[in-house]
């Protein structure tokens, strides 16, 4: 009998139709081999793939808490080391809330220990699982349920935390940024990260259908537009050096309006607000140009 193709994440999950994160996860899985253990933080990914007694995972997978996936991964790695297993890779998967906010201290500890763990952050730019509250990854001007837009509010007044810089400050050997919408880029970065000895961090913009208030078919388009506007460039650092960027000398940015106007979370923004956001894109373009 012919064997069915083995998925590390089977198609049986119950995420929203068109979920940007789940498509990014599939791209990550294509970069892994079977000798992998995953430590997952609490969030959409855990909830939508592990409703007991079922599981969509074809790899050994553990979820403990919201904020401790990095430390759980350290424990797994210590266990593998003790038994002399040098082959098995340890991966962390978490959302932006678990990464930028509540789990940050434990991520710092893991990076400080210099452990050979690949940490993947699926960045939906809000606490999607609990109902789209603002996180440290929420960009300026975004309306969330805890930073709602209103007569006296433009939504989030804070800028997105620079997690890549935090990773680089820890001398993380491999730091990369990608987006759902460029799956091959994601897969290639995962494969590359796994060849590096030492900590690696990949942050993937993962458009959230209800959170961003976008059409079901638009997650990939939004990811691509985030790159094309310069708001979320594809980046790759090795040993602290920027080695690849989607912002090259010939980069011609699309106007940020093209990205913002398709998303309900930004629909309240006025021209002056959009101008402020275009300055963020301009800053990125100068910072990440190679």
């Amino acid at each position, binding site marked *: 009998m012919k064997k069915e193709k083995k998925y590390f994440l089977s198609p049986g999950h119950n995420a929203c139709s068109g979920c940007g994160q789940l498509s990014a996860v599939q791209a990550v899985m294509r970069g892994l081999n079977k000798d992998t253990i995953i430590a997952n933080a609490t969030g959409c990914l*855990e*909830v939508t793939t592990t409703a007991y007694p079922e599981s969509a995972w074809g790899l*050994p*997978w553990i979820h*403990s*808490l919201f904020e401790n996936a990095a*430390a759980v991964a350290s424990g797994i790695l210590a266990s593998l080391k*003790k038994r002399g297993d040098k082959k098995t890779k340890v991966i962390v998967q978490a959302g932006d809330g678990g990464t930028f906010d509540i789990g940050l201290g434990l991520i710092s500890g893991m990076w400080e220990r210099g452990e050979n763990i690949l940490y993947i952050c699926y960045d939906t730019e809000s606490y999607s699982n609990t109902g789209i509250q603002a996180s440290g990854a929420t960009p300026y001007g975004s309306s969330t349920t805890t930073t709602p837009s209103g007569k006296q509010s433009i939504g989030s007044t804070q800028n997105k935390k620079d997690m890549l810089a935090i990773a680089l400050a820890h001398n993380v050997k491999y730091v990369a940024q990608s987006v759902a919408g460029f799956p091959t880029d994601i897969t290639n970065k995962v494969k590359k990260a796994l060849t590096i000895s030492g900590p690696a961090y990949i942050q993937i913009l993962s458009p959230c259908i209800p959170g961003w208030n976008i059409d079901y078919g638009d997650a990939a388009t939004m990811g691509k537009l985030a790159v094309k506007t310069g708001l979320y460039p594809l980046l790759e650092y090795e040993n602290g050096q920027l080695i690849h960027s989607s912002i090259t000398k010939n980069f011609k940015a699309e106007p940020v309006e093209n990205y913002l106007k398709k998303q309900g979370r930004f629909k309240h923004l006025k021209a002056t607000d959009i101008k402020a956001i275009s300055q963020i894109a301009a800053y990125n373009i100068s910072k990440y140009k190679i």
Partner: protein
Amino acid sequence: MNKTNKQKNKQILEGSRAIALTIKNIAPDVISAYPITPQTHIVEDLAKFKAEGEANYEYIRAESEFAAASIVLGAIAAGSRAYSATSSQGLLLMTEVLYNISGMRLPLVITCANRAISAPINIWNDHSDAMALKDSGFMQFFAENHQEAVYQHILAYKVAEKLNIPVMVNIDGFILTHSYEEVTIPSRSEIKKYLPAFKPSVGTYLDPKYPVTLGGFYSPKYYRQTREDLFKDMQKALLEIKKEWKALSTTFNYKNQGTGLVEFTGSKKATTIIIALGSVAGTIKEVIKNNNNVSLLKITSFRPFPAIEINRLTNFAKNIIVIDKAISLGNAGPLGIEVQAALRDKKKNIKNYIAGLGGSDITEKQIAKMINSANKKSDKVIFNI
């Protein structure tokens, strides 16, 4: 073992060192901890053993107790035996993870060097920390002295790994951690005979050969079943602790009057029985040694709680004195509440003393005073002795 060897094994050791040496001989695969007084000497010693090449566990320096608990969680989930130790604020910071560990049925053993909880900040001994975790799904043992602490740690791994329920061994901060006593540390090979290597069954831990999903999302009907299962297994632990303590006492030739759950000292027909946890039992024994009317019922396993033993052993007594080194604010001492519940069908005069908070001494004089006023009318919860 001949007499010469036996004497050679007796050493005068600091309590923390006795525990560290025992843990070394139990040979966990992974240790992770974070410093906090009065627990620090244990994890310092364990780090030193590793540094000197006397131990080959992985020792992971954590950036908080929360991380340390998470690290040992991950290690056990991947099939390793693990250890951590903490106190007071550290235990509270670990709390979310500890509930997770018991819920995931991971057989962790931790030492809690018992210390008061802030505010106000205080580094000395009481049982406020352990009592805050009494509903966490950890078994909780309390040691009177160094030797009992040593054997309780060995017992802890045995029952934890048999039942997949974690254990917290409680030792009074400073009183036991920083004091010196004569103690025998069983060797690695002796321990191995009693406690085999940790081998979780295939398909229960993280292994690429048998991919499993641990810590999935449980809907109401599955969630409630896990709590019921843990409750029932905790009841089974009452029998398992007794059985294993007996086997341990024989294996290590450890002469003691305990059952693993409780230890009774004095006449079974005494009119007054004192019930207490931990090192204060030593002081109580000194006070009652020539008094046939007063006996001591030392609780060595607070979780699971030995209600049947308490009922049986207090059968003849009129007066029960419960000494608590903690207070459940809004009610009474935690041990007092449990004893009241265990004896609810009996007509006993139960007095609950709240003593030793924040390291205040519990003196022989105070205990004598408790005994003398056992018959007299007073409040049920008494702070001033």
